[in-house]
């Protein structure tokens, strides 16, 4: 099967799933009588509707090719960074490093990926961003909580720019026998991460009894984690035909993606709750912000990239 044919099959499958989800929402809406039941169904409908939009954007992005994919992910990083900074208390003296993060580091990272230079894009933010952000901050002459303020900016750029940029960086991997098909790897990553989130939510709503992390992420349950995680890992194995992996390799790799995604979800949830918020933002109806959708991706993308780069190139 050619690349395009595989893409069409995967997107076709997603559209079938979303149609089922939309129908389920409509049927559940008729049966919901209690106040909280109705609120849950309304949120479910909003989530599904937002998924239709996100899938449409993704399909158009893939159809338009690698450059557009990079630009779209640069905007994803931009919106995620915007949300992160909005929730993080900054001082007027952080103005200069904030400008640096938004208008130099962010575009710089994506330009380095466009130039297919792994050696530079892998160290640009962890080394040079890490050192430059606090260095530039000193110019304002404000030492109040300097270490805390530096750490906030470093975390913001690491998660929202560096980690997320590993997703489109998959496009530059040259895997023998898989040339020109790297877009499918990106699709595979996004599919597994998001499916894992969705199935954990579904299993949690259906069978959830035991809270997994009541303080950090109150909606996560052990039943949801196990049910959603196992199902997603299996689906990841069955989807091996769009990847360069065998069934067992794909199963193992999707397990790693799911695990990293869960850790990402927990970490970023702890972070936003520590900042006093329930959601990162308001951009995506029913989901919250961009970062509420990308939290798992930010952890899974670099791990997946390195696994593939180490074992398959």
């Amino acid at each position, binding site marked *: 099967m050619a690349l395009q044919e595989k893409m069409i099959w995967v997107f076709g499958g997603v559209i079938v799933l979303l149609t089922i989800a939309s129908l389920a929402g409509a049927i559940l809406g008729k049966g919901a009588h209690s106040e909280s039941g109705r609120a849950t169904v309304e949120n479910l409908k909003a989530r599904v509707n937002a998924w239709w939009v996100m899938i449409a954007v993704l399909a158009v992005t893939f159809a338009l090719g690698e450059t557009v994919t990079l630009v779209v992910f640069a905007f994803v990083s931009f919106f995620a960074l*915007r949300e992160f900074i909005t929730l993080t208390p*900054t001082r*007027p003296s952080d*103005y200069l490093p*904030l400008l640096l993060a938004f208008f130099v580091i962010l575009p710089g990272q994506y330009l380095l990926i466009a130039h297919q230079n792994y050696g530079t894009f892998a160290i640009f933010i962890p080394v040079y961003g890490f050192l430059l952000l606090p260095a530039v901050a000193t110019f304002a002459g404000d030492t109040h909580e300097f270490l805390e303020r530096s750490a906030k900016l470093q975390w913001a750029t690491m998660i929202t720019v560096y980690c997320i940029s590993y997703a489109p960086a998959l496009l530059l991997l040259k895997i023998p026998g898989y040339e020109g098909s790297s877009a499918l790897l990106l699709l595979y990553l996004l599919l597994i991460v998001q499916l894992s989130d969705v199935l954990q939510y579904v299993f949690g709503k259906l069978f959830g009894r035991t809270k997994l992390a009541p303080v950090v992420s109150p909606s996560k349950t052990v039943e949801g984690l196990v049910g959603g995680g196992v199902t997603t890992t299996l689906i990841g194995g069955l989807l091996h035909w769009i990847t360069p992996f065998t069934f067992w390799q794909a199963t193992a790799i999707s397990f790693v993606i799911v695990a990293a995604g869960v850790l990402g979800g927990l970490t970023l949830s702890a972070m936003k709750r520590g900042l006093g918020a329930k959601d990162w933002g*308001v951009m995506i109806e029913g989901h919250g912000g961009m970062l509420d959708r990308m939290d798992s991706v930010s952890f899974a993308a670099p791990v997946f990239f390195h696994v593939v780069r180490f074992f398959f190139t």
Partner: protein
Amino acid sequence: MRPSSFLLTGVAKLLVGAFPRWMGCAPEATQRIYFANHTSHIDTVAIWAALPIRLRNITHPVAAKDYWGGGVRRYIATKMLRAVLIDRSRSDPNANPLAPLIEMLQLGESLIIFPEGTRGASAVPGPFKSGLYHLATQFPSAQLVPVYLENLHRSLPKGAILPIPMTCTVRFGAPMALSADETKEAFLERARGEVVRLAGNVKA
């Protein structure tokens, strides 16, 4: 609306979000005077971008002539935002500085004003100047809608040129009116209180 106006609101939304929150009223095309806290030069564009297009067509921001009166800024203010310019410095002591606003209200149009008269640095507004009171007495039928702009004082601190991207909500509160026996001071303080109330529990 001009294509350049769409470009301006598009850039504003990209930089600061400007997500509308109609908390106390609906986006209706009745004559209104929107009054908001003022912390940065993008406040005007942010409120304007938060309004639906049909309301933008009948709503005019009020901008200071000494800042927005010349060059590119004048083009942005008068052509893109269709703003009314107000003479803060009162270069002609006999002229009523509110005259251009009154003219606009007489045409049935709506206004966006910043009653503090200048940009503050904190999350909650400072004391209001009396312009809002005078407009309220002369146009009792216009709805006075309090507006709170969140976060913009962080996005563009005084003296800065390029805004830091930040998600900002534009909160529209319940319309208020001047009471029959209310003094100017009491009214202005009540109006300021309405904006502060929309701020919720933000840190000052």
